[in-house]
């Protein structure tokens, strides 16, 4: 097992932990708007880190490039979708009764 693979494994562990943390936060955070903050670690750190770990494990080549592209797409898509969801949540919650503020 080379240093590269060990590094990849370490990144995998960190990434998995981040993703699990995000998922846990999604469950725990009470308000719908606050829940959106739970998405950030997963999309910005966890997912790209997994892609990076895989790219590292695969070694240089076309496969690694594809993996990095996927990582970049995930990292870029996260904030954009989060903001869009936030806007819809705000818009609909403002126009309607705050009945579900506590769910």
């Amino acid at each position, binding site marked *: 097992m080379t240093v590269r693979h060990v590094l990849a494994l370490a990144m995998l562990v960190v990434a998995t932990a981040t993703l699990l943390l995000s998922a846990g936060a999604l469950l725990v955070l009470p308000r719908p708007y606050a829940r959106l903050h739970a998405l950030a670690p997963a999309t910005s750190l966890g997912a790209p880190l997994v892609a990076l770990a895989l790219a590292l494990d695969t070694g240089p080549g076309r496969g690694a490039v594809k993996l990095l592209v996927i990582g970049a797409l995930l990292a870029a*898509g996260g904030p*954009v979708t989060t903001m*869009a969801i936030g806007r819809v949540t705000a818009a609909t919650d403002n126009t309607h009764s705050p009945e579900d503020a506590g769910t």
Partner: protein
Amino acid sequence: MSRTARIRLFWGAAAVIAALYTMACLRLPHFGTAVHPYGDRAVAATLRQRTANTISSINFDQRAFDTLGEESILFGAVLGATALLRRTSHDHNTRPRPVRVLPSTRLFGALLLPVALLTGIYIVAHGQLSPGGGFQGGVVLATALHLAYVAADYRALQRIRPRELLDQADAVAAGAFTVLGLAGLVAGVAYLQNVLPLGTFNTLSSGGLVPVINAAVGIEVASGVIVVLAYFLDQTLFATGPAGGAFRKKAER
């Protein structure tokens, strides 16, 4: 039948079906069985046809007739949507108003659009090699185009969507599949027979007729899905027909 009676009847029927279906499942070969005679034969035939993706070989070569029917269903759905969502004289149009989109969404959509198109083309082109093919790639291509709607507004989509052309492309691609089948008959062999040279295993040109049919399916699916979605988008964003109530007699023209 009252709702309660209906639901009671359903529970009775469901209990019977569930019991007998469970008994049937116990007689099935266990999950993960090693006995797959047809599958094994199909794999062998695929390798003889020098197609790397067995599923593509089955879909476009061994059981191409199924796919012909399947693509006809898609073609029929496009025609059906044309007929069902046609503009009748009841409907009058309104112009959709532009929407304010978050700048981040706009930027992301603009960046993602080319990537998505490339991905779609890649999935179609490698259909006979890696997972994917005409159908999957076609759907990605169609969805990619609708990123323009998400990122900007419907007018942007209308500008980059040559609807008439796509409508015809759909028909032409559906016809191409049928005609490619006829090629075998013209050559004096069977309908849908793979008459082209088979090429080298695991290259883009391998598989004879497979990549050609695959490409036709890709074009048909992409244009078909776009056209169907276009009819739905038109209904949602444009047409405001009668506000409901009892159906009315058509106004004199």
